[in-house]
């Protein structure tokens, strides 16, 4: 293993990472590179030897049955779960090197959860300004100003001083997205962000994600919304048995999959009426 000093995003490629793969030092344009990710929970192997590359401005959508490892992969990338083997590089920096400070890494990655996970004891505005003030040491007034500007953009400025339990699910999820956007993340991880929403509230969240794509945000999205995947994805990855079984442009993976298991999965989704 090579050593890894905290490298700023402007100096990629100074850390070649593990040299056991032919493309080991090719990071050109890559925001995220996962190699050989392995993760098990109490003997249950969830990810086995998984590889994933995400280029800058790319939107990668992960699909697959429950328990196929989509969420686990996202949590591993954000270092919320320690991996059992493999390497993860963010902007060319080896973030799974032993001496890397996970808090520093997470400052550059945004994550949005299925259950929103807003802090119930804080107002919407306090939820959003917590990280800028405490982590990025932005002055309070600046943080508030920036938060209000973002809230206004997503049409929630009038909710700034409400507590999360006064908001609808869709509004809460949009606040959660704003909460992570304010830190200008290099990479945004979205973990089934519409799965806990009533059907009529899904649209407002998906619209927001579509806007983010148009602004060039690099994203990895785990979702069950196949119609949305088709619209927003640059690449769709089908996870099965802890690795990516098939990946490619959405029309191909969702419309004409090569693998029989991908076809079977999509068939089940169609039968459940979830493919628009």
């Amino acid at each position: 293993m090579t050593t890894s000093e905290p490298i700023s995003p402007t100096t990629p490629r100074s850390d070649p990472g593990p040299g056991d793969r032919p493309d080991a030092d090719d990071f050109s344009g890559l925001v995220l590179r996962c190699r050989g990710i392995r993760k098990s929970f109490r003997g249950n192997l969830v990810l086995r030897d998984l590889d994933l590359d995400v280029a800058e401005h790319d939107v990668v959508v992960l699909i697959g049955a429950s328990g196929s490892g989509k969420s686990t992969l996202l949590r591993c990338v954000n270092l919320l779960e320690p991996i059992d083997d493999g390497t993860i590089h963010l902007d060319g920096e080896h973030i799974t090197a032993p001496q890397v400070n996970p808090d520093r890494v997470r400052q550059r990655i945004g994550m949005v959860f299925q259950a929103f996970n807003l802090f119930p004891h804080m107002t919407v505005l306090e939820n959003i300004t917590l990280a800028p003030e405490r982590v990025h040491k932005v002055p309070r007034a600046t943080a508030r100003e920036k938060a209000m500007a973002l809230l206004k953009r997503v049409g929630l400025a009038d909710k700034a001083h409400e507590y999360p339990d006064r908001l609808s699910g869709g509004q809460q999820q949009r606040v959660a997205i704003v909460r992570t956007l304010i830190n200008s993340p290099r990479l945004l991880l979205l973990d089934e962000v519409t799965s806990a929403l009533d059907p009529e509230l899904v649209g407002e969240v998906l619209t927001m994600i579509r806007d983010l794509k148009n602004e060039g945000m690099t994203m990895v999205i785990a979702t069950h919304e196949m119609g949305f995947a088709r619209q927003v994805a640059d690449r769709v990855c089908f996870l099965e048995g802890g690795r990516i079984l098939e990946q490619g442009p959405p029309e191909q993976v969702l419309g004409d999959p090569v693998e029989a298991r991908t076809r079977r999965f999509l068939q089940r989704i169609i039968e459940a009426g979830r493919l628009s």
Partner: protein
Amino acid sequence: MTAHKTLEVGGLEPPTEYHPSVWQREREAYRRRQTFRSFVIATISTAVVGVTLVLVITGSPGWERVKQTFFNAEVALDALPAVAEGLWLNLRLLVGCAIGALTVGLLTALARTLRGPVFFPLRALATLYTYGFRGAPLIIVLYLLVFGVPGLRLSGTPSVLVLGGIALVITYGAYLAEVFRAGIESIHPSQVAAARSLGLTYRQTMRHVVLPQAIRRVSPPLLNDMVALQKDVGLISLAGPIDAIRAAQIETAQSYNFTPYVVAGVLFILLAIPLIAVTDWVTLRAARRQSAEGAR
């Protein structure tokens, strides 16, 4: 039918005047009758029980003597200044011990939640402490500190009052630590995940996300323990300082009348009422918050 007619009036027309239906009016009338009936029954039964109690007690053969020894107004007035002065000591001790025990409890709970081998000694010590001092009777801890420590004849040994206070703090700190820990562990891991994903450190997550929610959640039991502490503060009189109960004892010894104890008891109750009222209010508020969270 009238019921039908009101339905038509209130139908799909835009905001017309609202008239409750016949059924609704009947339901309301029924409820009013029920409320009145309950009120009458409660009043009668309370009066019966109260009058019976008064008759039985005042009619008992020894009532005159008991009244003389326990409820003597003259003795009560005589004893009041001394007892009240003692109560002032209780109050000061209570405030000091409450602050001390809350601090010790919170720090111990935090030490017990630390993970990682570096913190093993701290964690082990905290665990040992909560196990030991939740089991140890307060009186024994008090005696050991108040009589044992001065026995060492070290220079700078604090006063008996301070030593007694320390005994209260370490005993109550062990209980409060468990209350705090229960609160910390009741916060869902997803809250921690959200905070850490924003780049907050473990310490920042505890400080800004976990503890504020945990303390809010356990404030009813915490306040309840404060009410208990308020009474146990009186145990310090066993070591010498003259608190309200000790003052009452001295008064009693002079007058051969037990009324000073009753005076002390009443003062204790009066002192507790505000604290208990706050506890109830906080509990009610917490319950409402919980149900709001549950309905989400």
